């Protein structure tokens, strides 16, 4: 019994730390693919780790009028994002804390992190921070309802809001080609792009402040604070990729009762899918141009419309079966 409990604990711990470990690698893959496609050499794949290490060593310079919020926000944001990322089933469903991995809870955790970041951006009183925060909140106003609709559609399909339950449902069903799921997929991809500040919503490598959304909020941060925030953004990317994989491509995931062998396979599959997704993101970013800010509501509106349509059609399918 105790051995079993220890194994469970170990597995959950592995998931927690795997997410953290692989995050900089995923971002490295994205950057590398982008660079190669643009016929540049690109930074080495492990550059993300080196960046974090460098930032942790450096001194953190803080403005004089910064409040306690400014100082504490990075750690809080990192903690919230890490918990959320750790909860998404990656290589096995049915891990120890999977009862807590509720899609609604996930949305709440991410929403809290975003609120803290926006507040921190406004804290020091610079104008660029203000721009970033207001744009971020505008995007959130549109993306969050879409996200809720998406998770509701999936919950309706699977009959539960537990992520692990949804994953199990999709593993069990043969590849059901359902319109509402396809629509949810597209909507979730759009929301993921928006939340991770990727093209076409925001350019993560821009240095022009007026075009920034996410970067503008963290302009004032340096040193270990910046390291925490950067790590949080890497984790967020992994979270969304992992969410997409878990919901829409869960093959290879070990079921609740599998042993170490199953977990190993699951881990391998998950890593492969994650890095594959990161590569795809790199290709996508190179192919599309960034949208003008006033068109963002339209773009995110698409996600909302698709989410709504997905629910309507889910009810359609439900109603037809009665």
């Amino acid at each position, binding site marked *: 019994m105790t051995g079993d409990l220890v194994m469970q604990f170990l597995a959950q711990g592995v998931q927690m730390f795997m997410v953290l470990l692989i995050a900089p690698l995923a971002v490295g893959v994205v950057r590398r693919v982008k660079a190669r496609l643009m016929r540049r050499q690109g930074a080495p794949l492990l550059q993300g780790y080196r960046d974090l290490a460098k930032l942790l060593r450096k001194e953190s310079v803080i403005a004089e009028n910064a409040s306690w919020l400014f100082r504490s926000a990075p750690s809080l944001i990192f903690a919230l994002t890490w918990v959320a990322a750790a909860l998404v089933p990656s290589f096995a469903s049915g891990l120890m804390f999977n009862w807590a991995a509720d899609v609604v809870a996930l949305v709440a955790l991410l929403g809290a992190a975003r609120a803290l970041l926006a507040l921190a951006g406004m804290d020091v009183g610079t104008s660029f921070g203000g721009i970033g925060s207001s744009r971020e909140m505008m995007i959130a106003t549109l993306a969050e309802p879409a996200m809720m609709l998406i998770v509701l559609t999936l919950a309706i399909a699977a009959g539960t809001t537990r992520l692990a339950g949804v994953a199990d449902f999709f593993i069990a069903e043969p590849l059901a*080609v359902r319109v509402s799921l*396809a629509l949810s997929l597209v909507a979730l991809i759009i929301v993921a792009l928006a939340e991770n500040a990727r093209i076409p919503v925001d350019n993560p490598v821009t240095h022009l402040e007026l075009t920034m959304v996410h970067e503008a909020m963290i302009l004032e941060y340096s040193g270990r604070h910046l390291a925490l925030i950067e790590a949080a953004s890497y984790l967020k990317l992994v979270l969304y990729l992992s969410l997409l994989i878990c919901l829409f491509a869960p093959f290879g995931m070990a079921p609740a009762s599998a042993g170490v062998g199953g977990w190993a396979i699951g881990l391998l599959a998950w890593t492969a899918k994650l890095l594959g997704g990161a590569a795809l993101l790199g290709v996508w970013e190179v192919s599309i141009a960034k949208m003008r800010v006033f068109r963002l509501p339209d773009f995110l509106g698409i996600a909302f419309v698709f989410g709504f349509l997905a629910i*309507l059609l889910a009810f359609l399918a439900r109603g037809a079966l009665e």
Partner: protein
Amino acid sequence: MNQAYEISHLLAGVMLVTSFALLYQQRVAAVLNTFAAQSITLALAVAWAAWSQDRPDLFITALIALTLKGIVIPVALHRTVARLGIHREVEKVVGVGVALMVGLALTGLAQALLFKVTHGTASHAREELALALAIILMGFLMMIVRRNAVTQIVGFMSMENGLILAATGARGMPLVVEVSVAFSVLIALFVFAVFVFRIRERFDTIDIEALDRMRGDRR
């Protein structure tokens, strides 16, 4: 058997998505391309129905939809837009957001309506019919909220797409489907070509507002 219905619903769902995409576009060229995509999806859906319902005559309908509405008409309209110097931007009566919201409402309405009414019919026919009605209503919406004459034509033709989808969904509707499809496409094309040319001869734009100045009812 279930698989067949799933795929036909997927295709119908993609058509519905293209209807929304039609409302979203800002440029006339993009509208025409989206319409071509919708027609091609329609052709696929009809071809799938032909195969799964074992009705080879529907293949002809699919072919007509593909060639005429997927290729010939969009290309012809592209050329017309270029040659006549029609406004490249779509003049809107209401914004994109409002149009999309109304589209959502119409989709819900179509579903609610059809589901209340058709208790006796097979569930798969009902789903397809609900989607088709939604596409029809959205084509109608597009005709109302977009002021450019070319986009009004596209709105009407997307309505026709929805109708053909509905006719395919109603199982066993006989050869008349093909006859009506062919007729409506051919004659519609003839009329459109004649019209767009004549309109251009008289006005500098194909903005319906400009046409409205000629309203005879005030005489």
